[in-house]
């Protein structure tokens, strides 16, 4: 199958898978939804092994370069072509998201997130909106997975492990939930962090006259600490922090500390009264 057909299909199929997952997930909220999706991603590992005829099981599948409009895109042979491909997909997806956010569907996502009762009163079908949001994010993840497959060249049931899910989650929490800027900021930081760490390790090692410091698990430890730090001190991520700084300058000297806090929160049963 030519890449230009296979690639869109990757998104469409995962989108459909997203809808199937969304239907049972609609009843769940917050932490329970998180547990459900986590369980599903672990289950996927086994499903891939079981579906050996399609997936190649534990041995996995191999993929060489692909040809797009006569250009060979191969991570090893023509890495710059691979870069342009990823960039093009990223730009297109981002433009799509920007368009969504300025049209009714994107606003209905915001509405459902902030207040289900009033979203409903405005005519937004909660179940449908959630299903579409699941399908969309699954489709985009499907495209990312297709690019990752091309990048890795070989992949099996362990290629898309929980560790990746956790890394993606960290990116978005650190960057700032609910914003396009946040996704980019988070991806840049989490992407560069291992490099920063190894440079830092070498420098610290040189300080003591050795070569490099080798502490097992150091990377994950630091990732974890950063994540906890953000959740405790800046739940809105780097982008949220930037918004606060901007507002502070805009309103100087009238900025109040509680400006970005929810004024009140109600229990579900209290909210309607």
């Amino acid at each position: 199958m030519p890449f230009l057909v296979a690639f869109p299909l990757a998104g469409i199929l995962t989108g459909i898978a997203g809808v199937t997952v969304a239907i049972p997930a609609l009843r769940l909220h917050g932490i329970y939804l998180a547990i459900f999706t986590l369980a599903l991603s672990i289950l996927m590992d086994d499903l891939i092994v079981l579906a050996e005829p399609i997936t190649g099981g534990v041995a996995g599948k191999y993929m060489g370069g692909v040809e797009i409009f006569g250009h060979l895109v191969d991570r090893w042979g023509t890495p710059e072509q691979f870069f342009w491909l990823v960039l093009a997909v990223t730009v297109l997806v981002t433009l799509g998201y920007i368009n969504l956010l300025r049209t009714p569907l994107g606003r209905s996502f915001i509405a459902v997130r902030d207040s289900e009762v009033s979203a409903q009163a405005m005519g937004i079908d909660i179940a449908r909106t959630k299903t579409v949001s699941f399908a969309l994010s699954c489709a985009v993840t499907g495209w990312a997975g297709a690019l990752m497959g091309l990048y890795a060249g070989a992949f099996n049931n362990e290629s898309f492990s929980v560790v990746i899910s956790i890394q993606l989650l960290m990116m978005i929490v650190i960057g700032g939930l609910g914003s396009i800027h946040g996704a980019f900021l988070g991806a840049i930081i989490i992407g560069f962090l291992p490099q920063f760490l190894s440079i830092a390790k070498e420098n610290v090692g040189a300080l003591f006259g050795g070569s490099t410091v080798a502490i097992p698990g150091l990377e994950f430890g630091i990732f974890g600490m950063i994540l906890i730090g953000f959740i405790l001190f800046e739940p809105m991520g780097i982008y949220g922090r930037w918004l606060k700084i901007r507002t502070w300058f805009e309103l100087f000297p009238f900025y109040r500390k509680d400006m970005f806090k929810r004024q009140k929160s109600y229990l579900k049963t209290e909210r309607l009264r």
Partner: protein
Amino acid sequence: MSLLEFENVTLKFGGLTAVNDLSFSVEEGEVFAIVGPNGAGKSTVFNLISRFYDPFAGQIRFDGHDLLQVKPSGVAAYGVARTFQNIELFEHATVLQNLLVGRHRHRRTNLLSEVFFTRSARRQELENREKVEEIIDFLDLQAYRDKMIAGLPYGVRKVVEVARALATDPKLLLLDEPASGLSVEETTDMRWWIDDIRRQMGITVLMVEHDMGLVSGVSDRVLAMADGAKLALGTPAQVQSHPAVVEAYLGKAS
């Protein structure tokens, strides 16, 4: 035919009868107020219209349609908009975004035309924005257009909620305690706005309000409730002097 009709509606929460065999109807073009002590079931009446609860018995009709056949997200499509007693805005969005959500029921585009921001999606956004700007001008919200709800004072939020409801272009506007927590000046503004909403925009208003000054100032008819049941129905003056209402508010003078 009345715009909104309640016919012997009863709703129970466990053992508590929140709405008890209630019948009333709201005529097109009027301002209709519901008053009553705390816990009388006023907000529950609104929530019934919004279809958040299924009544235990009775009929609710709107504009000739059986509202009980409509799902909660379908009510807006018939032209019913509302505000909430404990303001329910979209906190982490701007005033403008909140009002634009109000336009949702007029959506003509689909996922694809929105993702590609096609000509029809662009035209629709221009229309939405134009309509929303009219409401911003009407309610004097210009200064807050791009502000996040989360940072706004209470009085402004109340107005934004009314604005969002108006953005849906409703036939019937439900206001749950529009003046509670407002200053005297803000309440006066609200009074004139409600008047204009009815007179200029031709929207029927059904409101719950404790402030009797506001109620007698703007409403044509008043329904007094206690313990989920109707006490009295009539002009503001009639209801205020009705013995059952006086008794419900002041206790039995025996």
